């Protein structure tokens, strides 16, 4: 079962097991993990699911789509050129068994 780990600014950590196919956004919203909103339901148009992916997981991620690229310029917390992604676009599965993200200060 894939796991998603969310690190918060206050040092607390949430680690959840999810069924394959669950996105980083959905896992957080359904799991009640603070700091990720998902206002558009995962359509890459609200930028309220912004996360910073830990460097060691970047290589396994799908490439940025043009839409995600645009949305990442609209995030409430500063964008990190390497690590910022939209949580709704990162789906766990055979290619992403494990992912660790930092939750930004605001969405």
């Amino acid at each position: 079962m894939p796991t998603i780990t969310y690190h918060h600014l206050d040092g607390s950590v949430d680690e959840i097991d999810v069924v394959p196919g669950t996105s980083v956004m959905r896992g957080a919203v359904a799991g009640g993990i603070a700091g990720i909103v998902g206002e558009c339901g995962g359509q890459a148009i609200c930028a309220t699911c912004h996360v910073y992916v830990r460097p060691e997981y970047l290589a396994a991620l799908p490439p940025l789509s043009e839409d995600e690229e645009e949305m990442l310029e609209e995030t409430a917390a500063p964008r990190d050129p390497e690590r910022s992604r939209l949580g709704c676009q990162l789906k766990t599965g055979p290619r992403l068994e494990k992912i660790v993200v930092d939750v930004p200060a605001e969405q």
Partner: protein
Amino acid sequence: MSTARGIVIVGSGQGGVQLADSLRGEGYTGPIDLFGTEVHLPYQRPPLSKDFLGVPDETGQDATALPIRAEKFFVERDVTFHPGVGVETIDPAAATITAVDGQVLPYRDLVLATGARNRALRIPGAELAGVHSLRTLDDAAALRADLLTARRALVVGAGFIGLEFAASARAHGVEVTVLEMAPRMMGRVLSPEMSDHFHGQHTAAGVRTVFGEGITEILGEDGRVVAGVGSSGTRYPADLVVVGVGVLPNIEIAQQAGLAVGNGIVVDEYLRSSDPHVWALGDCCAYPDARTGALIRLESVQNAVDQAKILARTLTGTPTPYAATPWFWSHQGGNRLQIAGLIPTDARSVLRGDPASGSFSVFRFVGDDFAGAESVNNAADHLAARRILDRSLPLTPEQVADPTFDLKGHSRTSPVPAA
């Protein structure tokens, strides 16, 4: 039961839940009671006509609802959630509500976030098995179950929900016919150019559309739908019918309480109803458009969420008028439509980009004033349009039509301060 007078929210949908969250965010510490007629944990509606009806991904799992907030949110935020408990009456003079379970609760402020319901088709056969409308999670689950065995679907109404369903049904390999009384798709909201583009896209995906055609009767066998009959007399065989002919705001409790209602619960720019301690937001409310002052009612997540955020400020002592730029999206097959602004139907269209490329925008003007933009698969244009509207930046039809004009750069310039 709490007896302290706090904030009572009627309706646990997108707006009601956001308000509860934002009230705590703004530092409100009094009681919050959230009533909802639905028994489910509050969930997001947009995916119900999109991902929820889609074909399973490679992992083959069943669709599940996407919560607005998880269960523990209500505990952590100290929000008393009353699932499955509708509010029946309001007594503004006594400042109390009465719920279906008989409880009477006093309020300091009451917020109506009751949303809207689907307009029903009053024609013979509308109650047959296999005839669906789509508003709630229960609706979507029932529709999804039928979709898995359907062969031919008939969609009544070429609006957002009907067309989102049509695209999902095609992905399941179901034959789809859409009946639309008007001469074009999504004609109430979209430019002719964008309507035509979507017509082309749906046609290419195998959706058949009949314009100028309503529905007069639904025929059944053994209690199940077998066909619909169009206003032209044509018989459309179908084992599944989806009705998407618009919604009506849930205003009845406001009306019975003697509050001003029209096409929605009438509120001022602070979202205050005709009673000083009753407020309304989201799909159920008719509010003055910040630009024109005309009463408008919108059905969108943006509107419900942004109104909730603004109202939370007002209710915690910082009166804030609502003036957000409306935006909306719809996802139909591979086409993602995004609309920025409140666009009058007779606005003039200026094309930006090439429709044949599948990614372009229609910018719309009233006289020479920019009113908003419709974009398909073009988030950059959509976001630029939103920024331009947010900041009231000037924009001319000539600039839009010029492919070398740096729209994004322009949208990031600072507004000229008023003299």
